[in-house]
């Protein structure tokens, strides 16, 4: 199974991206729990790309390659997020201090922490003018 999802990197298209990914993994037979994890991960990555790879004065698109890999009786979902925005390595963002009390707790950085926790593998590479972020999860 393989599918390419492509749309403008704008928040109004967030639901389109997430619904397309949901349809893909539903067809692959993933449980509701796994679907939740994947959708949450996808939202965090997409919103980060929209905010940081494409700042306000820069428009562009995001392409997602979804693929089901099967080996040794295991089914894995691989999603590759590709944008042509400025260099942005989500993995370099610092995770927040999770034990900080409400008063001093930082409001940023939670998204990437969720992605790293929910996925089995997360990797980034910059290829010429593209940011390429891959995530893999057993479903």
């Amino acid at each position, binding site marked *: 199974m393989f599918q390419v999802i492509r749309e403008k990197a704008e*928040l*109004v298209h*967030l*639901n389109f991206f*997430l619904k397309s990914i949901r349809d893909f993994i539903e067809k692959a037979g993933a449980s509701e*729990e796994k679907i*939740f994890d994947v*959708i*949450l991960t996808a*939202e*965090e990555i997409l*919103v980060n790309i929209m905010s940081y790879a494409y700042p306000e004065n820069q428009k562009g698109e995001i392409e997602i390659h979804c693929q089901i890999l099967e080996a040794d009786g295991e089914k894995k979902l691989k999603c590759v997020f590709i944008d042509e925005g400025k260099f942005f390595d989500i993995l370099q963002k610092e995770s*927040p201090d*999770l*034990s*900080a*009390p*409400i*008063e001093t*707790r930082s*409001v*940023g950085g*939670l*998204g990437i*922490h*969720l992605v790293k*926790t*929910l996925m089995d593998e997360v990797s980034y590479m910059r290829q010429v003018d593209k940011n390429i972020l891959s995530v893999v999860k057993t479903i």
Partner: protein
Amino acid sequence: MEVFNEKKNGITCLRVEGRLDAAAAPAFEKALLSAIKEDSSKLVINLADLAYISSAGLRALLVGAKEIKAKGGKMVLAAANESVKKVFDISGFSSIFELQDSVDDALKKF
């Protein structure tokens, strides 16, 4: 996402219904801050009908919690489903927020 301002025993209970994602979070944050402006002493957030939350929703909750705390009040979260609870656990919110299984339990915390 929709937010309903309901009163129980004179305490404001904000019931949030649907999906609290990046597109919905700004409207939720606005409703939350407006409820705190009305009454900054006691607030229950009823999550029974919340199907999904992302970091944008967590940030809105944190902004509200900071605001009510700065004003000397208290905010209690109630009735989150298993998926939402998992997001709270991963993000450390379970230890910094007061989470109750039901709205009735949350009301007893004041």
